């Protein structure tokens, strides 16, 4: 992350929503113990879910939730970039396109016709894209949803003008540190932990299930090796492999290309 120039005395925060479930911005309101303190440190100038009063920009920090999937959203994100000194995308929709990016592999007109009797009333872009596909982003916070402790870390770092301390290594490291028995070894459960970025607290293994990739690809993941192991040792079919990679972060590389390769039988 670029460390921003000095922020205002009481930095002004804007929270934007694009195509999403609201869950990542909700994480701000889920900071039950810190919310009032946070409101003392930062002026929450624009946050439609929390307040009716929308103070005009410019803002010091913009948090962006959601992916860009309609022409109106494209216009709004360009304005948000102009209005914010620092722009941070939060969550899988904003950093990867989110679950709705599954439609990028499909015919959007067929989708519209399937759901809406009058598809011509519904305006959409051909693909649902991460924010960085449209404007320059200063920092990305992964997760479906983002982890609220990580969100506090990013905001604290911005206020202190330092880099946030956030891991880019795989979930396995976080899981081992927590002393959780490996579900892939002990329970023979397929787990995306080796290729997924840490940050959630290794909750799935803690609950006896395999990681399903909410935090997207870790730094330099060896997807081919995991895929081979899944298929040879854990009875995972090629179509199941495609589905595992194509979920909340499926449109983010290298998950995207790998899933295409498995689909077209290019990956071993």
């Amino acid at each position, binding site marked *: 992350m670029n460390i921003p120039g000095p922020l205002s005395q009481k930095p002004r925060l804007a929270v934007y*929503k694009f*195509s*999403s*479930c*609201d*869950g*990542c911005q*909700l*994480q701000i*309101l*889920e900071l*039950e*113990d810190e*919310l*009032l303190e946070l*409101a003392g440190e930062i002026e*929450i100038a624009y946050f*439609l*879910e*929390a*307040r*009716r*009063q*929308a103070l005009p920009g410019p803002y010091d920090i913009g948090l962006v939730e959601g992916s860009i*999937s*309609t022409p*109106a*959203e494209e216009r709004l994100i360009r304005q948000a970039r102009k209005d914010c000194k620092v722009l941070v995308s939060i969550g899988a929709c904003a950093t990867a396109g*989110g*679950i*709705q990016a599954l*439609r990028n592999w*499909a015919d*959007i007109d*067929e*989708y*519209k016709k*399937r*759901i*809406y*009797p*009058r598809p011509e*009333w*519904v305006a*959409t872009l051909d693909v*649902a894209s991460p924010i960085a596909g449209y404007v320059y982003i200063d920092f990305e916070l992964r997760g*479906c*949803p983002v982890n609220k402790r990580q969100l506090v870390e990013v905001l604290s770092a911005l206020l202190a003008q330092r880099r946030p301390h956030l891991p880019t290594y795989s979930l396995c490291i976080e899981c081992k540190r927590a002393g959780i028995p490996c579900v892939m070894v002990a329970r023979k459960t397929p787990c995306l932990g080796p290729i997924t970025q840490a940050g*959630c607290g290794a*909750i*799935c293994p*803690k*609950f*006896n*299930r395999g990681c*399903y990739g909410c935090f997207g690809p870790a730094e330099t993941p060896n997807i081919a090796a995991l895929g081979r192991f899944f298929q040879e040792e854990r009875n995972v079919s090629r179509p*199941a492999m495609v*589905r595992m990679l194509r*979920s*909340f972060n499926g449109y983010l590389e290298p998950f995207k290309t790998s899933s295409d390769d498995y689909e077209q039988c290019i990956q071993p």
Partner: protein
Amino acid sequence: MSNASNPETRVIEVHNLARVEGEGSLHLKIQGNRVTDIRFGIFEPPRFFEAFLRGRSFDEVPDITARICGICPVAYQMSSCTAIEAAMNIKVEGQLRLLRRLLYCGEWIESHVLHMFFLHLPDFLGYESAISMAADHKDLVVGALRLKKAGNEIVRLLGGREVHPINVRVGGFHRVPERGELDALGEELSACRNFAVDAIRFLASLRYPELEIDYDCVALRHPKEVAMLDGAIATSRGLEIPISQFPDHFEEIQVPHSTALHGRLRNGGTYLVGPLARLNLNWDLYPPAIKKLAEEIKFTVPCHNQFKSLLARGFETLYALDHALELISAYAPPSEPAAEIKVRQGVGHGCTEAPRGILYHRYEIGADGLIRSATIVPPTAQNQPQIEADLAAYAPRLLSLPQEEMTLRCEQLIRNYDPCISCATHFLKLTVDRG
């Protein structure tokens, strides 16, 4: 702008409705004292869940549908699971079913408290947000935060995290808690109970606009308990049908100003789902302590004033808290975390009580366990036409008010419904047009 000098036409317009979940708008046009145009617009971008669920495996569905809504993911998981279990003839009973109810109590508490104190109450007390409200009502906001946190703690403990829990699966859970793991949760919930009761007394002292509407209430009804996960779909006009007959009696239609389909009864009528509808249909099953509190604050059921949905949420929150305590004290860990699953072809319907009202799911599953078709009818989509009908009844009474005040009142009415626009789009943008 001012109505006194020009009574003919007035327009109220809100482009981005605040303190709701998702993106919506309102356009209201009033000529004389007649509302001539209401468009409760939802411009939340469509995300096409029903389309991309096709071809996914049945066991991925609860994780995917959770992402429809960050505020009520448990509801989506529960409706998905119960529908898929119906299709595959899987019975989830005993402690597993009770653990699901406990998880749902957590979501009712966190979602209701968020809406009551952070989204809705500022309208009644004249603040633009709970944060500005906290300057004058600090104890109330701090107490509400603690109660909300306790609800979230249920979801975190049973689900792994508050938003998009990871521990729910078709057939039950991945892991069930040990007996001792719930003790601290029980203590915290008990510690929040006095606040919950005092908060209801405080909410009862507020001034509620008078607006009685003859609602056709629709909710789940279970013969023995306040329905959450199962039962029959009942209406205040006397219809009682199994969940699988939902499509025979209810339909969704598309209107140009909304990316959310509108729900209505097949005979064309609007209907009400959510906390007030639930209380009206299930009040006989409420525990005596809560009925006594209702009597004390002079809340009578049936209630047909949606502004008092604020109180209905209060009662449901208290019920969920007491019920959670009951479930915790009677908890004995089941031997298996989930019922056995045998994949089979079939069609299944599920309907559960999301915080905002009934949430219906239907899946057609192939013999390979892959989804062939999916239908999801969220509560806010069903309430949309009723919101417009309420506005048509309410707006003419507000004509003497200045524009800003009238707009605020209309927004408050919309917030009665705790509309979850992310869910329904399948938003909210309010314009009152009076010329």
